[in-house]
Each structure stands twice: as structure tokens, then as C-alpha cells.
């Protein structure tokens, strides 16, 4: 079976600093794959390369067998590759509900012609999007703050909104960048539940960067360990936690 995401020998340097060094990872369709590694291992850079926010110096990125290396971030979005941001991003001057309503793809209003000449079509579509946004915002438990400006939400609520965005359209793969950071324990349980439900019921594939080992252990299989810009190992959480090399990379050997 072709992996849904196939990163092949990707290199990326910022100035003289080689951040990704011959990085190759595969993500199996339908999995929740975890990605861990010490700070500076290149996790976020690899994410940005997959999502299209950065282009690699060399190497290829394949989505479901199709080469998407040259596509822009918004084109990758329309192919079903969605992401969240490590530091929650929001349209701060729009309400939480409007934030969600910005997302859906293939909107007739995106086109100048339909905006001016087919207002009815746009209105009907808007109503549909609005219904979906209300469902999603209820699902992520932010219904009570739906009309607040997104910039005024708490850090944790913004993270939930990030997850909500990925539910507005039919995604194939969702990249979650430290979605749990700054979210309290109760919300975190909801978040994990939601991710599992999306995985099982909607067939989303997830690639998850996370520092919270609890969350990785509960959610992810397999787990990829990144260190100094390349893949150190891949396996289930027990293999990873018992691997001396991983412990060395994380704790500099002192905890072994």
C-alpha cells in the first residue's frame, strides 16, 4: 500500500545550518503517527516542508503517491493536507465561528464571477458552511464563545479552534503541531477523544508532533524519533521508550 505521506531524502538548510539531513519518513494511511525528538531536531521544519510553508533544497514530498513538492501551501490544502500551528494561529479580528467559516474548500464565492453574478449560489453555500461550522464548534466545546473575537480566546481555546478548522473540510491527512501544549488536562482528554473519533469515524490520518509523552503513548502508533535532522528510529511507543539511543538523545545519557 502506498503511504499517504512519503517524504523522500529531503534536505533543508537555513544559511549554513542544516536542519533536515536526508530526512525520509512514511505515514501509513489511517494511522495516527507520532513524531518526537529533542528541541532543534527539525520536527517543525519537517512539518513545514510537508505542509508547503517551506520548500526543500532537495528531495521530494509525495501525497498519496502524487508528487506535491512544487505545490504551494494553499494548493496542498485543497488536496486534503491540513495542518495546525505550534503557536495557535487565528484570524484575531473575526469571531470564532467566522474563523471556522473561512476554511472550507471549493467555495463558489472565491471566484469574482460568482461573487457578483450568482449571489444566490453563494448564499446557499454560506448557509451550508455556517451549519457545518456550528456543528464543529459544538463538537469542540466552544459553542458558548462562538461569537467572541478569536483573538480574545484563551490559549487552550485557540488550540481547540485549530483542531476545529481541520474538521471543516474533508481532510486526508492532518498535521498536528503540539496541539496539547498549553491545554489543561480536562480539555486534553476531550482533544484526544476527538482525534480518535476523527481517525476512526472520518478516516483521517494524523501526523502528530508532541512533547507530552502521555499523549503520544495514548494516541500514537507508530512513533518516529527525529534527532539532528534525520530519523533515528521508528517503532511502537514501548520500543521507543526502551531504546538506549533515544534516551541518550533526550537526556544526554544521564538517565540511562
Amino acid at each position, binding site marked *: 500500500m502506498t503511504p499517504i505521506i512519503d517524504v523522500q531524502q529531503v534536505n533543508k538548510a537555513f544559511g549554513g545550518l542544516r536542519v533536515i539531513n536526508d530526512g525520509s519518513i512514511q505515514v501509513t494511511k489511517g494511522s495516527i503517527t507520532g513524531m518526537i525528538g529533542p528541541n532543534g531536531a527539525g520536527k517543525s521544519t519537517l512539518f513545514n516542508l510537508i505542509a508547503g510553508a517551506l520548500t526543500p533544497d532537495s528531495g521530494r514530498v509525495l501525497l498519496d503517491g502524487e508528487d506535491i513538492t512544487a505545490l504551494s501551501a494553499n494548493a496542498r490544502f485543497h488536496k486534503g493536507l491540513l495542518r495546525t500551528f505550534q503557536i495557535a494561529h487565528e*484570524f484575531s479580528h473575526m469571531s470564532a465561528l467566522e474563523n471556522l467559516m473561512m476554511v472550507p474548500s471549493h467555495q463558489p464565492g472565491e471566484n*469574482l464571477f460568482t461573487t457578483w453574478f450568482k449571489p444566490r449560489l453563494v448564499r446557499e453555500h454560506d448557509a451550508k458552511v455556517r451549519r457545518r461550522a456550528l456543528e464543529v464548534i459544538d463538537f469542540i466545546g466552544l459553542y458558548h464563545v462562538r461569537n467572541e473575537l478569536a483573538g480574545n480566546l484563551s490559549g487552550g481555546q485557540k488550540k481547540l479552534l485549530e483542531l476545529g478548522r481541520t474538521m471543516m473540510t474533508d481532510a486526508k491527512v492532518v498535521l498536528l503541531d503540539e496541539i496539547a501544549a498549553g491545554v489543561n488536562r480536562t480539555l486534553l482528554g476531550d482533544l484526544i477523544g476527538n482525534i480518535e473519533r476523527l481517525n476512526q469515524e472520518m478516516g483521517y490520518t494524523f501526523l502528530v508532533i508532541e512533547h507530552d509523552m502521555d499523549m503520544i503513548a495514548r494516541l500514537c502508533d507508530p512513533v518516529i524519533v527525529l534527532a539532528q535532522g534525520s530519523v533515528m528510529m521508528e517503532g511502537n511507543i514501548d520500543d521507543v521508550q526502551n531504546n538506549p539511543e533515544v534516551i541518550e538523545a533526550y537526556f544526554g545519557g544521564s538517565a540511562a
Partner: protein
Amino acid sequence: MNEWVFFINNVMVAGSVSGSIYAIGAVGVTLIFSIMRFAHFAHADMMTFGAFMVLLLTTTFPAAGASIGIPTALIMLPLAMVLTAALAVGIDKVFYKPLRAHGVKPIVMVIGSLGVTLILQGLIRLFAGTSGQSLYVDDRKEIFRLALPFDGVRVPVVITEPQIYLFVITLVAVVALHLFLNRSRLGKAMRAMSDNPELAQASGINTNVIVAVTWVIAGGLAAIAGTLLSLDVTFKPDLSFFLLLPIFAAAIVGGVGHPYGAIAGGFVVGFAESLAVFNWNILLRPFRDSFPAWLDLPTNLAFVSTEYKIVVPFFILVAILIWRPTGLFKGKVI
């Protein structure tokens, strides 16, 4: 009463005229800033280009308007808007896009736009000459003198035909822009991109399309402002260029990146200018008899003389930057 009619003519009408033009110009500047984050200095010359297109079309088909009963220049305005929008998109492709692709600092874009200013000014002078030319080629500029129905009022309120068109078109443009930004998905996508470009990309918004749409709107509005200004005065290749300071002042006063702020800022600057050059002695004239004999008022009581009008937006700008640097409305995001 006659004194107050002077006030209406010299302050209310004149302020609304320049205010409208500043407002339309400043909206373009502010939209460009909110999407691309740089001050577009070539905006005034895009205005001149629009007026020049109207001049060309009007001299080519001078009689086109007579059949409908409106000035030919106004019929040609939509076409000139399209041409100016095309020019704006073209300039972006050739000059600004490569700079953006290199991820240069905003100041480099600003200097690039100064270069574009020089190019446009040179080209327009080359083809249009340097002298003033009326946009009323075959038509007659109507001047309306409205006598007020009060006893003893001899002075009429004077409004010219292009000024009325200016007010109507400004109102239409502002309402259309408001509906576009708040109702259409494309307008919302523009607001989204000005708020957070990275998230806009990750939400599937094609930022290249948004940039192009911004130039189309800014170019169209520039053509409107330049043409209406030239209709009111005459077409001159450097006429709009001298409005660059008041237009930027208007955009900053309103809060850069905020289109409604730009409109408000335009009228603030326009009225401030006309209030500053108004001879206040006129309003005191009826009370002259009751003044004590030692009080000898000068005949001209204006704050600044007309030649120094340009200092007014400059002072407003300085004042705003000191006391309210984010502008009247909080700027940065549409």
C-alpha cells in the same frame, strides 16, 4: 447670512471635494498596506494614469457622452478603471512580485515603488505633455448656482457638475467596498489574509489571487480618484503627485490598513485644509460695528495662506503620530 454662504462654499463644499478625493486615494493605499505591508508611493501616479486614460479615450470619442447627456469623460471612466487595474496588476507582476519572492524588507518595496513613480511620471509626461488639459473635451462644465430662499441672501451656493458626480461616485464606491469586504467570501479572504497570511494559506486561501484582487481594487479606485480630481480641476501629469502627502496623511490618520479609517481620515484632512485656509474675518464682518475702536482686525484671518495648504496634512500627521500612533481607528487589519 451671505457670510455663511461664503463659509459653505469655501469650507463645506471645498472640504467635501478634497476629502472625497483623499478618501478614495487613501483607501487604495491602506488596502495595499494591509495585504502587502508596504507603503505604495506610486499610488498617486496610478491616479494620474487613470485620468490620462480617460483623457485619451475622451479625445478619441469626444461625442460619446452627448447622446446620453452626461460628460464623455464619465462614460470612459469604467474603461479607464479596467485599464488602470490592469496596469496595477502588471506593475505588481514585473516590479513587486520578484521582490516579494525574495522576501525583502518592506523598505525595499517602498523604494521600489518610488522607482515606479518615476517611471510612470516620465511615461505620462512623454505621451501627455506637461501642460494642463481639460477632460471636458466636447462637453460643457455645468456650474450650479443655488440661491438660498432667505431674505437678503445675495450670494448663491456654488457647486459644479463634476463635484456632484464626485460625491455620488464616492458614496457608491464606499458602499460597494463595504459590501465587498463584509459580504463576499473574497472580501472576507482579504480580511483573513491581512489578519494572518500564514493561516490564510493553511486555510486554502490562494494568496496570489488575493494580491491580484487587491491591485485590481486599488487600481480601479485610483482611476476614480484621479479622474474626478482632473474633472474638477484639469488634467496635469503632476496634479495627483502633489496629493501624495495628504493621501498618506489620511491613511495614517485613519489607522493604516483600515479602509473605513482611511475614508474618515480623508475627510478629516480635507476639512482641516479648507478650515485652515478659510478667511475667518468674513464671518466676523457683521459684528464689526460692535467691536471696540482699538481692535483693528487684519483683513485676512486665515490660519495659513492657500499656497501653504500642504502644511496642514503635515501637521495633522505629526499630531496623530504623537498622540494616537495607531490612528483614529486601530489600524493594521482590514
